[in-house]
């Protein structure tokens, strides 16, 4: 790729819309992700309303959204709500923000490159994602209703048998396009890290953020195609009448709905690691940066991440313990799933060791990183309840699962996304976000996340199933309705609290104080250039001499009067 350093494309369209600059594409993904995060969040508010007050019209917006049922969330509408909430959160909010957004923006800067390996492919990846969102948005307005077979879209509910109409087909198409975008991104990220690292930037000098995103990309490249295969077969079943998942009316040899579950979860389990690996990487970096000391056991942490990546491909069966699989297979998956807890605890030890005897600065990004660690702690341990076949048979498809994955996946990843936004906002937009407002946002988000999803663990323990439009239909669940109301209250406060973030974001975008090149006083390469960086990133490709968390070295303090060493700076003396 030839380097005409000063030449940024002219014209609004080439510069801001159809740009191949990874920084522009990263911001585009971020905007797309944030918009859909808000949409999925709004859907969650409706779900929580229905669970707290079943049969009562939704205040203010009910008449507009659900005119046919007088503002009440009808059972069919409820199924569409949780389907779209899950689908959008995973594929159209968290993935674009963390991987499309921060992956794109940070990766080349952190490794000392001018751009991704394949800038045009990068742009294509964004517009493919955009096309996917267009299809998914359109599916909301399908004549027979939006997709409603759950984000997992199990057949035969998701075949023509259970979901007639065009919406579910559109869902499959949207997922396929989303997957294609992810795979394009994965090709780019994997190649970029392998090929475009600056001289001296060895693999074990990469920031943990880069490791997280790179490893997530490897999982993306290998396992999203498996989802694509499942989607293709489901598409064929729905559109061309093939019989892969359609079993016929009684006991007759033919298609197998469980086949889909295998394909889906071979993708589905690595997917949750795809979402959390970038967050783990970001947390690892931020904890070191704001404890002002190197990451504890950096190499061991990296090997733990790699171990999790390898194991993630062979544990998927724990999602299918009650589907009638053979006991031996069940035991095998149980053992493998439990083994994943070991590298996970090693990550936890690393985080604690990083903080221990540090000089901790409680900036907003640090607070969110700490929140991530706490929430993941709760959520991670609850995974053990579900890894175990005996307890899982009881807890499967209850709110315990919902609480578990919201704590681990969503909250940890979401908190990680906020940490990333607060941390890199100055670099991306050239202005600082407001600290006090950020801290308040953190306090509200952390507490509401813990209450909302922690109490869901209790609801599941008490036996409440998930995906119920009205739990009070069961006598054994009626005593739990007050608890549902508490959960919903916490959720509403969580939703309302995000307004602080929105206000902070937009206000700071236009009127925030200008950001210096290195406001956080850390040594990774993106902080050696201006905020925001020039089009070509680096005037001269830097040479790297040090690891990413060289903070607290007394030599630096003596020689240069600061407690951090920039990666492209040689140690004095």
């Amino acid at each position, binding site marked *: 790729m030839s380097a005409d350093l000063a030449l940024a494309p002219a014209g609004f369209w080439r510069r801001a819309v159809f740009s191949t600059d990874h920084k522009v594409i990263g911001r585009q993904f971020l905007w797309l992700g944030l918009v859909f995060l808000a949409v999925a969040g709004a859907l969650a508010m409706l779900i929580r309303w229905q669970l707290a007050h079943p049969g009562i019209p939704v205040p203010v917006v009910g008449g507009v959204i659900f005119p046919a049922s007088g503002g009440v969330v009808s059972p069919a509408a409820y199924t569409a709500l949780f389907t779209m909430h899950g689908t959008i959160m995973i594929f159209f909010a968290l993935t674009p923000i963390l991987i499309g957004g921060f992956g794109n923006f940070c990766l080349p800067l952190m490794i000392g490159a001018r751009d991704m390996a394949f800038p045009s492919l990068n742009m294509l990846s964004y517009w493919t994602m955009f096309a996917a969102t267009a299809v998914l948005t359109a599916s909301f307005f399908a004549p027979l209703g939006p997709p409603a077979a759950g984000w997992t879209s199990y057949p035969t509910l998701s075949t023509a048998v259970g979901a007639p109409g065009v919406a579910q087909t559109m869902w499959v198409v949207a997922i396929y396009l989303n997957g294609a975008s992810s795979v394009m991104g994965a090709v780019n990220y994997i190649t970029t890290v392998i090929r475009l690292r600056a001289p001296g930037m060895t693999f074990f000098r990469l920031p943990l953020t880069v490791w997280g995103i790179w490893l997530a990309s490897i999982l993306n490249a290998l396992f999203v195609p498996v989802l694509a295969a499942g989607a293709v077969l489901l598409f064929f079943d729905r559109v061309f009448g093939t019989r892969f998942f359609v079993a016929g009316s009684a006991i007759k040899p033919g298609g197998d709905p469980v086949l889909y579950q295998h394909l889906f979860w071979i993708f589905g389990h690595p997917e949750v690691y795809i979402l959390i690996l970038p967050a783990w990487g970001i947390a690892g970096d931020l904890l070191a940066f704001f404890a002002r000391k190197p990451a504890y056991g950096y190499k061991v942490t990296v090997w733990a991440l790699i171990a999790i990546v390898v194991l993630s491909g062979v544990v998927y069966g724990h999602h299918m313990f009650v589907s009638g699989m053979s006991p031996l297979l069940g035991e095998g998956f149980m053992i493998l799933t439990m083994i994943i807890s070991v590298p996970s605890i090693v990550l936890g030890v690393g985080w*604690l060791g990083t903080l221990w005897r540090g000089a901790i600065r409680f900036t907003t990004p640090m607070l969110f990183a700490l929140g991530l660690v706490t929430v993941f702690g709760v959520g991670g341990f609850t995974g053990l309840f579900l890894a175990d076949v005996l307890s899982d048979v009881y807890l499967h498809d209850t709110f315990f699962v919902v609480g578990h994955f919201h704590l681990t996946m969503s909250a940890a990843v979401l908190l990680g996304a906020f940490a990333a936004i607060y941390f890199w906002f100055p670099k991306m937009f050239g202005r600082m976000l407001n600290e006090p407002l950020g801290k308040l946002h953190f306090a509200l988000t952390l507490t509401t996340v813990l209450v909302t999803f922690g109490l869901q663990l209790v609801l599941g323990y008490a036996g409440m199933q998930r995906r119920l439009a009205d739990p009070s239909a069961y006598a054994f669940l009626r005593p739990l309705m*007050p608890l549902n109301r508490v959960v919903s209250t916490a959720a509403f406060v969580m939703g309302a609290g995000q307004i602080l973030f929105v206000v902070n974001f937009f206000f700071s975008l236009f009127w925030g104080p200008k950001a210096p090149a290195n406001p956080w006083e850390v040594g990774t390469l993106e902080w050696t250039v201006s905020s925001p960086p020039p089009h070509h990133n680096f005037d001269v490709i830097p040479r790297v001499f040090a690891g990413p968390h060289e903070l607290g070295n007394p030599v630096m303090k003596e020689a240069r009067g600061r407690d951090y060493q920039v990666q492209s700076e040689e140690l004095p003396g």
Partner: protein
Amino acid sequence: MLPVVALASLSAWTLALAPSLPRLLPFALVSPLPHDASAEGHHVDELLRYLTISTAACFGVLMSILLVALVFHRGRGRIARYTHGTRRRDRLAAVIAGAVVLFGIDAVALVRSSSALRASFWRYPDGDPLAFRVEVTGQQWAWNFRYPGADGVFNTPDDIVTLNDLRVPVDRPVYLQLTSKDVVHSLYLPNFRTKIDAIPGSVTRLWFEPRETGKFEIACAQHCGAWHYKMRAELTVQDGADLARWLQRAAEDAALRYEAADAEAHDGWAWTPAP
């Protein structure tokens, strides 16, 4: 700043939750688990209790370390300790933590789970003459229960088929085989700590042994469409005499209602033992 925010959040939460506390208190004092009416369900409860205590203990230790670090190792006045965590004792910390989780929680849970599963849940009462057999067909949105009738064979004219009404004897193993007419459902018995999917085109199986008489709820635990939440059936556990009387009356009813030409209604299958 931080203490102010923390105090403010705590006060806000206390005020918000205070009115609900009386209704939430029962959960703190009594286990939230539904009443266990089964012979084998206690294995599940014991495992859940063990997991709760062991994970809470681990989490407590980790949180304590975190809080100590956050309180005592903060502030710009401090000098951070410059270490990469690569010394022998650092690696030891990771090994110990991993070992505690692997052997203290994982291995124990694994052994308890496996032994309970092999000893009971996976030991289908195939050869047991006392086993009470029922074939279950899930559909959108109800449960059909087929009893073999006097001849003990399924899909014969004397079968009794009920809608959402499962009646079983107390203190005898109840053996279910399940399928579905349309989409995947899941038969969930909260008071017996068990569930199994009902999948169109295949047969799954489940067994349990009720220890007390009474009425219990059967729920569907797999999203199966708009009315999934209403797919509720009733399980009635009766002692031998009561059940026999009910079966007698139901058999008379079934005989009256039997229609040879109605092929769709004859959706039972030959009972297949577990592989």
